[in-house]
C-alpha cells in the first residue's frame, strides 16, 4: 500500500508542478506555447496601425520628392504615436525606427541613427525579422562610421568600427536563420492572412 501512496503523491506532484509552471508568469519553456497570449485585436490597435500605415506612405511621398527631412518628420510622428500595449505595436515601431536610422544615416546623422537603432532593439527582443533587420541596419551604421573614421585618418578606431560592423552583421544573420528555422518548424501558420 505504501507503494500506491508513493505513486499517487508523485502523480499529483508532477501535475501540480506542470500546472504551476505553465500558468505562471515566469519561464514557459517546455510549455505548449512560449508566446504569451495578448489581448484581442481591437479598435485601439487598429487605429494605431492605420495611422502608422498613413505615416509610412506619407514618408514615401516625401522621399520620392527628395524631401528626406520631411520623411524623417513623418516617421518621428509615427514612433511618438500613442499606442496600446501590443506585440504588433512594438514590431511596427521597431521597423519605423530602422527606417528612421537609415534615413538619418543617409543624412550623415550617425549618432541619431544609432539612437533609433537602440530604441528599436529595445522593442523587439525575440528572434524576428524585425530584430534581424535592426541589427543589419546597425551593422551598416558601424560600417559607415568606420569609413568616416578611416577618411579622417583614425585608422585604429576605423578598424574597431569595422569589426563591430562584422559582428553585428553576423548576429543579424544568426537571428534571420533562427527565424527561418522556426518558420519551417511552424509550417508558416498565419502566413495566409
Amino acid at each position, binding site marked *: 500500500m505504501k507503494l500506491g501512496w508513493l*505513486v499517487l503523491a508523485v502523480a499529483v506532484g508532477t501535475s501540480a508542478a506542470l*500546472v504551476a509552471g505553465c500558468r505562471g508568469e515566469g519561464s514557459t519553456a517546455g510549455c505548449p506555447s512560449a508566446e504569451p497570449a495578448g489581448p484581442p485585436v481591437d479598435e485601439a490597435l487598429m487605429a494605431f496601425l492605420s495611422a502608422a500605415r498613413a505615416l509610412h506612405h506619407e514618408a514615401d511621398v516625401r522621399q520620392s520628392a527628395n524631401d528626406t527631412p520631411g520623411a524623417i518628420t513623418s516617421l518621428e510622428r509615427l514612433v511618438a504615436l500613442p499606442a496600446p500595449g501590443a506585440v504588433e505595436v512594438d*514590431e511596427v515601431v521597431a521597423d519605423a525606427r530602422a527606417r528612421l536610422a537609415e534615413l538619418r544615416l543617409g543624412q550623415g546623422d550617425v549618432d541619431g541613427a544609432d539612437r533609433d537603432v537602440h530604441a528599436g532593439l529595445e522593442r523587439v527582443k525575440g528572434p524576428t525579422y524585425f530584430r*534581424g533587420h535592426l541589427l543589419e541596419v546597425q551593422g551598416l551604421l558601424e560600417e559607415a562610421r568606420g569609413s568616416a573614421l578611416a577618411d579622417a585618418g583614425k585608422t585604429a578606431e576605423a578598424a574597431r568600427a569595422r569589426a563591430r560592423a562584422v559582428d553585428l552583421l553576423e548576429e543579424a544573420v544568426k537571428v534571420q536563420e533562427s527565424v527561418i528555422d522556426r518558420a519551417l518548424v511552424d509550417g508558416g501558420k498565419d502566413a495566409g492572412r
Partner: protein
Amino acid sequence: MSDPRDRPDDPLAPATDEELAESAKLREALGDPSRRNDDAELARAMSSAWSPRDLSTEGHRSLVHRALIGHDARRRRNRVLRVSFGASAVLALAAAVVLYVRSDRPQPEAVHGTAMAISRSTQALFQDRFAATGGESARIDRIAMARAADLRDNEFAKWGVR
C-alpha cells in the same frame, strides 16, 4: 534356519524407533486437527465415511483458520491490483490536466463561444527576410490588412452573427 520374526516385513516384529516416532506423530495429529498429517487426514476421512459426526470445535477452528489464510492472500493480491488501477487513474488524470493546460494557453479569447483573434507577433506574415533597405510601407500594409481582418472577425464574434 533364521527366525522369520527377524524379517523387516514381519507384522509381529517389534516396532522400530522410526515406527514409534511416526505412530506418536499420528496420535498427536488425530488428537489435534490443526496439525497437518496425511495419515491422520486419511483416517479421519475413513472414519467420517463410516460413521459421520459433527465437526469438533478444534477441527472447525482449524478449517476456518486455513480458509482465512487463503483469503488474506487473495485480499493482498486484490489490494495490489486496486492500487495499480488507482495509480493508473491518477496518472491519466494528471495527463488530462497537462493536456488541458496545453490546449488552454494559446487559445484566443472566446465571445459567444467563438474564438477571438488576439494580439500577436506579425512575424508569421513574412515568409522572407526583410530587404536591406526599403519595404517598410509594404510591411505595414500587410500588417494593417491582416489585423483589420482580425478586427472584423472579432466584431462579428461580439455581435454573435458568425
